[in-house]
């Protein structure tokens, strides 16, 4: 039993932390968040040069990491810095889908993703879905050698700036069957593909992507026809871990800022941190954040375990993070009082990010239910589809 990270991983985390502290200050971050692009191409390149992208991929996929703990370490740092660059969408979600299911030709795309030269995106949620993984109405039908894609994808991360999308589409089955889902690689330049970008509450941009009879050639299919679900689940699972770790970093930053405020801010002539009611609430918060950290560790450790073990640990973590992240956000604002309500204070942006993470890849209730359902599934360790 050993809770220390390896030397390499610690070094990466340290250099990433130093880089963010030096280059990704609050002013810079907010300027990037409000920019029309929603992230910085320059800083994106710097992250790539630092090896942050490489750390997210296994060696066989062109990286030098790719384990659960690699993802956790990187995203905890990114969370502390409220980093906006498209690591989740490009490297974790789209990247893992390609790595897991891609043909050799498709996997050739990974090199550019790892280098940061190409940004990919992941288009799964739809206007009518509420986190369901198997609910896909976007359709792809065979057309000669290729496919024709129709549908709308919602809240697609940095969709305006992706070179291509990994898109989930139904090629057979009922609307919520796990079977019959296929994945496609769709270039942003495809005819009939329209992107409408919009800013988000927590910084950065997303898009609604519409596919209007988009014609794809036969090589666009990622993996086997109708068997996209396990790949979807694996990619989203890694994304869940990344979000959990990001939230952990954000919580630690919010906690530290609030502690600092309690120690220095005076009211009625004394530091407000001397009020016992606030002390006890901070103690509760500390306990919760430690539990959140344990949840992230459990999820990272389970990433290569059998499916049920892995998915239950991931859902347990996302549930924990959703519940605790919202609590931390609300309590930290409340303990700051009025100033915690202001845009100018970094704390309020951590709070927004924490709450919004609960709206990505399944919220607290979704993952609690999923955890329960997975516990009931007969025949543990068998992959579906």
């Amino acid at each position, binding site marked *: 039993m050993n809770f220390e990270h390896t030397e390499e991983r610690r070094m990466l985390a340290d250099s990433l932390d130093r880089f963010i502290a030096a280059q990704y200050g609050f002013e810079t971050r907010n300027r990037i968040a409000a920019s029309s692009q929603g992230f910085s191409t320059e800083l994106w390149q710097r992250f790539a040069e630092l090896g942050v992208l490489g750390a997210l991929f296994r060696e066989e996929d062109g990286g030098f990491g790719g384990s659960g703990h690699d993802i956790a370490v990187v995203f905890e740092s990114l969370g502390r810095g409220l980093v906006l660059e498209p690591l989740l969408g490009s490297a974790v979600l789209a990247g893992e889908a390609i790595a897991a299911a891609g043909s050799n030709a498709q996997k050739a795309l990974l090199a550019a993703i790892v280098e940061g030269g190409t940004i990919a995106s992941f288009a799964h949620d739809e206007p009518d*879905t509420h*986190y369901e993984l198997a609910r896909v109405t976007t359709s792809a039908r065979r057309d000669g050698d290729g496919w024709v894609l129709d549908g709308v994808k919602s809240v697609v991360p940095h969709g305006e700036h992706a070179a291509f999308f990994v898109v989930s589409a139904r090629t057979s089955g009922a609307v919520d069957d796990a079977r019959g889902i296929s994945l496609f690689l769709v270039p942003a330049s495809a005819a009939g593909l329209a992107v409408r970008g919009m800013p988000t509450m927590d910084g950065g941009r997303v898009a609604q992507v519409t596919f209007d009879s988009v014609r794809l050639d036969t090589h666009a299919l990622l993996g086997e026809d109708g068997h996209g679900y396990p790949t979807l689940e694996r990619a989203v699972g890694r994304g869940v871990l990344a979000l959990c770790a990001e939230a952990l970093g954000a919580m630690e930053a919010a906690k530290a800022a609030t502690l600092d405020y309690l120690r220095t801010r005076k009211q009625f002539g004394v530091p407000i941190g001397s*009020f016992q*009611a606030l002390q006890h609430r901070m103690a509760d918060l500390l306990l919760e954040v430690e539990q959140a950290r344990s949840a992230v560790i459990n999820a990272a450790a389970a990433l290569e375990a059998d499916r049920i073990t892995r998915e239950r640990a991931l859902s347990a973590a996302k549930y924990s993070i959703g519940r605790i992240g919202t609590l931390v956000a609300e309590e930290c604002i409340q303990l700051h009082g009025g100033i*915690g309500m202001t*845009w*100018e204070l970094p704390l309020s942006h951590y709070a927004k990010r924490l709450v*919004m993470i609960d*709206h990505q890849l399944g919220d607290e209730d979704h993952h609690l239910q999923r955890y329960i359902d997975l516990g009931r599934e007969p025949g543990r360790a068998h992959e579906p589809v």
Partner: protein
Amino acid sequence: MDLNFTPEEERFRDEVRAFLAERLPERLSSKVAGGRHLSKADMAEWHAILNARGWLANHWPTEYGGPGWTAVEKFIFENECALAHAPRIVPFGVNMLGPVLIKYGSEAQKRYWLPRILDGSDWWCQGYSEPGAGSDLAAVRTSAVRGVDGQGEHYIVNGQKTWTTLGQYANMIFCLVRTDREAKKQEGISFLLVDMTSPGVEVRPIITLDGGYEVNEVFLTDVRVPAENLVGEENRGWNCAKYLLTYERTNIAGVGLSVAALERLKKVAAEVRRNGRPLAEDPVFAARLARVEIDLENMKTTNLRMIAAVAGGGVPGAESSMLKIRGTEIRQEILSLTRRAMGVHARPFIAAALDGEEDAPHFGPDFAHAAAAQYFNNRKLSIFGGSNEIQKNIIAKMILGL
């Protein structure tokens, strides 16, 4: 024991409903219902409509233009307005300064300022909080020094006020200022009316975490205020301040607003689908929703009980702290569930949609564009107007005797 309104009260409620049906512009109510921002003109319009009906200054005696309502009638009016998605009355002139002038103002002040509140000639804002003071209102540092010059007696005011809601629209601000630096904390404070068009007044926006602009900092640098703008006695302004705060707590439970918000939540939860069924039928979400609905049902009665105690000669006071805490918790929970119901569609944030621009992009379920913004904006409920922690201190001292 009778929880029903009297026949007179029911008639009154019908009268209010009829008025709202006839006079509340649909353009305004749909903005409120949709969580969109109201413009200055919107707020002024509603102010004028209420004034024309004589239903604006509900806490004023009839001799000054108040409607002469009982506590229950005030509750009914506020409740019905909330249910109809009427804009809230901008309270600073009507509900806060008005009662202070009526109790502490000179005859000349009443004659001059009260009609101007009613007809909208002045837009008032509040100069109470100061940076670094938070809920400790008596920690006033803004100074006013009395002097005489060619134009007569006056004060020179220097200092800074903050959290000044809608100060960007105001031409007048009532301020707590320190007129005696030697006196103990709550003594030596005076209550001054300051013309914001005077030289030396600067208003700077405070943007809240949701990107909204409602509150301001107000900087006062060598601002000359005529001595006749002093309300009450010099160094006795804390009495005005405390008296005003009791009116700030009017309708503090916000039951009508919570009912309206809950109705919207239920509509959203019926519309949004999870696993092919309405989210409202998801057992865990349904339980969350039912819990807050029951809490609100209980709160309605708690609120009415306390209103009845006041109406029946009971003493209000620390009870308003109880209403504030639970009322804000319930509203925050409803807004939290509304955000939760939006799923992935809670994240996009389109300011233009909140500002009511017609061609702003639409996405996800109805109200998705406003759910997260309203949730974040309303974290203020448990902070402003005396934080819920301060209210608990008050309860511990005044009710529990601890």
